[in-house]
């Protein structure tokens, strides 16, 4: 789950088939991991995160499912929020040191879980 473009599989290739449906469900159900992943490189607003996940993954996370997670992560001390300089309309979130550690662990565990599921399915449990 790296964020640089060359390491991210082009999820649009799944568009044409049944995979899109599963990718959509997996990303929506684990949106917190994807949101934290977006924040690894730079600070972002809720708006930026939704746009980024849409452009990278072709999955639209609705506002009502994203902002509660941002507020909860901020409350837990995993995110720091501040208004952009000169723009009080946009609150930018960044990972705190504890948040970065939690994000990296979650992303790694999530990727391992997907590999595990793939392995189980291929092996024919």
């Amino acid at each position, binding site marked *: 789950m790296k964020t640089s473009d060359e390491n991210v599989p082009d999820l649009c290739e799944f568009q044409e088939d049944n995979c899109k449906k599963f990718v959509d469900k997996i990303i929506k159900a684990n949106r917190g991991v994807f949101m934290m992943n977006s924040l690894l490189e730079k600070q972002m607003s809720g*708006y930026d995160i939704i746009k980024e996940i849409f452009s990278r993954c072709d999955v639209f996370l609705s506002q009502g499912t994203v*902002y*509660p997670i941002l507020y909860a992560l901020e409350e837990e001390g995993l995110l720091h929020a501040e208004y952009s300089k000169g723009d*009080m309309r946009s609150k930018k979130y960044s990972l705190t040191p504890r948040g970065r550690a939690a994000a990296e662990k979650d992303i790694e565990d999530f990727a391992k879980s997907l590999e595990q599921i793939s392995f189980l399915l291929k092996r024919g449990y």
Partner: protein
Amino acid sequence: MLKNTINGLDKILFVEIPKGSVILVTGAEGTLKSGLVFSMMANHVADNNEHGLYVTLEQNKESHLRNMNSLGIKKESNLHIFDYQDMRLEWMNSELDLITMTEEVIDSYKDKYDNLTLFALDSLNALYSISEYGNMRNRIYNFFTHLRDEGFISFLIMESAQSRIAGQISQFYQTERFLADGTIELGMIEGKGGVKRYIQILKMRATKHAMEKHQITIGDNGINILGPIY
């Protein structure tokens, strides 16, 4: 579960409100609607291992907390406040479906906190004023159904067009009154001793309650409900 959350509430509410009830809290401005609901929720979650969600459309979280603080009501860590300020500012050029969004917000908090048992929306008027009106009656019916299905007690705050001093109840919002399981009215009444605030339970399905108007005051220990007022 709420009968003992406010000093004197048991004078007007004789048994507990059933889970899954949707209750309207109506009244003119300044009649303690938000304070009453927030106080009940805060006191309940303070004594129980449960969570509450207070969604405010009218104010941001900080402003709401300042108001509650001025009434002597403290926020508990398991009472969560969600405001729409950031969302509305960042998406100001997009049309937001606030009813669907509120349902998503509830679902998100429910995913996070298994024991979410209380919900409040402050206010229905604000929800209407920034929502598309198309098919609103059906949408509000479905919204009420969604709240009931969640199984928690929900409070929907609704400012009535009633005059400050007890007068005729507005004919607006009759649909909500009909659909709701309970209606708590807050108001002000002028008597010889000056203007007093009152609380009256107009309706509470499956719950024994008083019908009289009772005086409601704010003291050092928060909100108190006193005897009947005439």
